[in-house]
């Protein structure tokens, strides 16, 4: 029984979530590992001062800060939010075209599903970081607006408006869902 044992019990269960957030924010596995390692060391160091009941939110806040520090040093352009959504949109459209996965020998419907997932992930990856983190925290981590506000250190109203803008961008980029309607990709076009 000691600090290490308790840290393992209280903080380590959230390692996967910490890694997922870092992976989405940095955009690659190696830097995500660095960010997580740095964050966990910081968490370990300050564990003594940790009193809150929510180890998960506490850890995600540390990871999120570390990831944004990494972004500002390595990907500063991803932090820029312009009011011109069309501008972001145009800039993103150029990259999405190249992101379609190569055709493989799979049944057509399977391929379409795989493509849908790949396109979807690429579209979220292409969002500016402050929008991307909202989508990731909401749709993958399933956090409430209040929890997201605490982790991202912004007001709840900003969470709402950023999520709305992020989704509007995604809809503009992705167009209509191929599976949400009768017909769709599998039927050819």
């Amino acid at each position, binding site marked *: 029984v000691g600090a290490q044992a308790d840290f393992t019990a209280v903080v380590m*269960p959230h390692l996967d979530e910490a890694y997922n957030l870092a992976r989405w924010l940095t955009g690659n596995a190696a830097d995500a590992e660095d960010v997580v390692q740095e964050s966990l060391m910081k968490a370990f160091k300050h564990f003594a001062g940790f009193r809150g009941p929510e180890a998960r939110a506490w850890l995600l806040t540390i990871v999120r800060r570390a990831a944004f520090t990494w972004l500002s040093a390595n990907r500063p352009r991803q932090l820029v939010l312009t009011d011109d959504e069309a501008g972001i949109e145009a800039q993103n459209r150029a990259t999405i075209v190249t992101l379609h996965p190569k055709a493989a020998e799979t049944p057509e419907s399977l391929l379409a599903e795989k493509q849908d997932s790949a396109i979807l992930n690429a579209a979220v990856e292409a969002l500016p970081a402050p929008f991307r983190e909202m989508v990731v925290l909401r749709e993958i981590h399933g956090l409430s607006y209040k929890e997201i506000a605490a982790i991202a250190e912004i007001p709840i109203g900003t969470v709402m408006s950023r999520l709305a803008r992020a989704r509007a961008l995604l809809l503009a980029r992705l167009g209509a869902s191929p*599976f949400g309607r009768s017909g769709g990709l599998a039927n050819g076009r």
Partner: protein
Amino acid sequence: MADNPVGAAMDCKRAQLLINAYLDGELDLSGSLELEAHLAECPNCRAQQEELARLGRRLRGGLENHVAPEDLRTRLEQMTTQVRHLGPAQTTRARASAWPRRPLLALAASVLIAIFASGGTTYLLMQPASQDAVAAEVVASHIRSLMADHLVDVVSSDQHTVKPWFDGRLDLAPAVIDLKAEGFPLVGGRLDYIDGQPVAAIIYQRGKHLINVFAWPSTETKEGPVRALTVRGYNLLTWSSGDLTYWAVSDVNGKDLAALQHLIAQGAPPTPE
């Protein structure tokens, strides 16, 4: 209170914003009513709502959830262990800020006590090994129920449907309460198999999270205290009540799970038969 004429006040731009909060279950009642009134009259916003709902389903089903690489986990576990085993000379800096004056066990206890104090009773117990094995099974069963598309055998938000369904299949009558008003709508029931016996699984929802509550005949004679543990990132609570052992498991936060536990343990409100 001066009411707005329903549906008249909202423009489409504001509606776009509120649709997101509405679909996320984050809009309050008056906002929801206002938005619904607008949607009833505005086909464009209705179409937008459908698009956003569809996008939400695609995102939740299609976004990659990255899992920490095993070697990262191992490395971190080693690092936290090593710091502990280094002598004082090497760890002066780490020690100064990292080590608490009182044992961390007490710290962990204060966390759990904070959770349960709100539920009216304060409990903390250490877990024997055998319970860990059951906990692992409970978590595995929870994950399986979410993955295998076999969450429920009987889909109903009506406790008067779910409870008799169990009575007919298991020789036990677990507490089944619809807690929709308290924010835990009942999803349904399922038969499962844990600790070498058939068990009842009652499924509740909290926002987007699902909670499995397992019940089987208790081996303890008395009403047991509530015990909390975390396994693979999932929160678990176990307690005994009315000859039954209960296990609640979910990825919801500990506070919500404790609230649900408290509601179930309080028992069903009197209902007309």
